[in-house]
């Protein structure tokens, strides 16, 4: 058990290291003089020299690479010139909104996807079944931010039920952004879970439970659902990662001051350290969630535990 955890942790660390290296290489790849950019166009040559030395731009690349990695381990992600503050404080202030939205959207996804899958498997081949498959296909054929724009247009601009954006109106500000993400993801989850449950319903234990006199609805919820859900944990973890990225885009639509909006602003101003800082934080979230999901499956499912741990 501990050997597996150590190996898994190692992979997580290596992933983060690869991300950080990628970030470093991307910054290196930017044409232009970073010292001149920091100093501004009117600064004297001496000032630029001083900045170049102070930030270590005159040191060899490998030296800067090592010190960048060391900086990253201290969560020092550099300076966001477009915001005139360190990247760390921008992210620390705004990541809360993004994480809240992501978690709410994830819960929404489960609340939509799971009951839908259970309901639809009792009606295989009938209208409800086909509708789920079609609806999941339709919502995944357009980018999520368009779903957001559509909801915004209908419910905020036309009907005026919800605010047009921002987070000033309490829970009402969160309804549309969460639905925007939760509905498409919930439909897709429902569809995947449906396939998984239909396979599981063929198993002999379902016949046995029926023969013993259990009601089908109870078997579906109590036996078939957990058995079909656990193998999907790694899918759900990747889903969470996708959610985080999707939420970042949806924030732009709904003007929610999370890291997605920061990313949008950073792209407009070409603030590379902020862009890479946000990508690194997203990577950290994704790696952590994947790790937790893999460990959770091992904790929950004895079959996987035996297969993985020998």
């Amino acid at each position, binding site marked *: 058990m501990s050997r597996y955890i150590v190996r898994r942790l190692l992979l997580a660390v290596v992933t983060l290291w690869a991300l950080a290296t990628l970030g470093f290489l*991307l910054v290196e790849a930017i044409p232009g003089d970073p010292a001149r950019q920091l100093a501004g166009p009117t600064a004297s040559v001496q000032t630029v020299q001083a900045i170049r030395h102070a930030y270590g731009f005159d040191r060899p690349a490998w030296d800067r690479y090592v010190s960048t990695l060391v900086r990253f381990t201290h969560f020092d992600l550099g300076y966001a010139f477009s915001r005139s503050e360190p990247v760390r404080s921008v992210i620390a202030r705004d990541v809360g909104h993004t994480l809240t939205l992501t978690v709410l959207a994830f819960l929404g996804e489960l609340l939509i996807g799971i009951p839908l899958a259970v309901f639809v498997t009792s009606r295989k*081949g009938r209208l409800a079944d086909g509708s789920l498959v079609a609806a999941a296909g339709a919502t995944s054929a357009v980018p999520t931010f368009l779903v957001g*724009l559509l909801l915004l247009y209908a419910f905020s601009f036309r009907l005026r039920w919800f605010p047009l954006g921002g987070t000033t109106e309490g829970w009402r500000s969160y309804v549309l952004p969460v639905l925007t993400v939760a509905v498409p993801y919930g439909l897709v989850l429902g569809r995947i879970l449906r396939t998984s449950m239909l396979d599981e319903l063929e198993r002999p234990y379902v016949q046995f439970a029926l023969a013993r006199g259990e009601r089908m609805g109870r078997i579906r919820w109590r036996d078939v659902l957990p058995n079909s859900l656990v193998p999907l944990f790694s*899918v759900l973890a*990747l*889903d969470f990662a996708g959610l*985080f990225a999707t939420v970042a885009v949806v924030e732009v639509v709904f003007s929610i001051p999370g890291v997605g909006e920061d990313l949008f602003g950073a792209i407009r101003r070409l603030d590379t350290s902020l862009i890479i800082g946000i*990508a690194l934080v997203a*990577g950290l979230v994704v790696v952590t969630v*994947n790790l937790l999901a893999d460990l959770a499956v091992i904790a929950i499912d004895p079959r996987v535990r035996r297969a993985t741990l020998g």
Partner: protein
Amino acid sequence: MSDRGPGRTAVLTIPDAPPLPEGAPVAREQGERRLGVRIGVVLLVLIAFVCVAAPLVAPKDPYRENVAGLGPDGGPQGPSLEWPLGTDGKGRDVLSRLIYGGRVTFGACALAIALATLIGLAIGLLAASSESAAGNVLMRMTDIGLAIPGLLLAAALTSVLGSGVPSLIVALVAVFWAPLARVTYGQAVVVKERPFVEAARSLGAGRIRILVVEITPHVLPILLAYAALSVGWAALFESSLGFLGLGVQEPTSSIGSMLGSGLPYYRLHPGLIVFPALYLGMFVTATTLIGEGLRTPHRRVAAGKTTAAEMKVIGR
């Protein structure tokens, strides 16, 4: 190895199977799939025709900014006989821009996925066939690639590499090679244990020959199914990137850049968002129908991790 000759296949041909009873679930599902693939192919051929024949099909010059195309308020115009899908904020014909934009978006996505598929195939096959640590390293690399949120990676890459089609293609390849390598690996690991691979080896076939001649044909069907799905997902990526102001930029028209530049007007002129979205939706539906249809159950040897890889790509 004469078993690949045309003469042999004739011997192996199985006579027509007796028809399954009416309404048998398997038959019906397969029928639906086949219908889906057919619809997808028709849609795709239509779109491909519009893309290839863009100069002939487009009624106007997509780059020409017309004063006559602006409304009385100096903004876009709604659809009319003169401008079938209306005009954009600079008085350009939306229909023509859409026709040319589809060319850029769908062409770039198809090219990027073709490259990503080749890279994924090579890495997946090498990782599956190598018994040494090298294969392991390749697969760990793929796992790392899968763990990076695709849209953010693409956003970081395109913002550093600058706007334009080449940087978009690089970003898409960087996102999509990993899941495709995963799919290849998952198949190849199973296929390489089959007796015919053993037979080829005992007949003296080398490692490369086994990979290319024996294993690849068994990997391709499922890999191409995922490649088809990925082309659609890549188009979704392009639209998200364009919306964020990345990738292909004005004045070049692409689905993403049209969505991005239409955003300020969408309350009064929803068409600027809706029409590109519909065209994109048509394309993604076509690739999805084809991809899903090709991914029939009997063709997938290994499940499990593949689904996870597939979900990773959906995280748009």
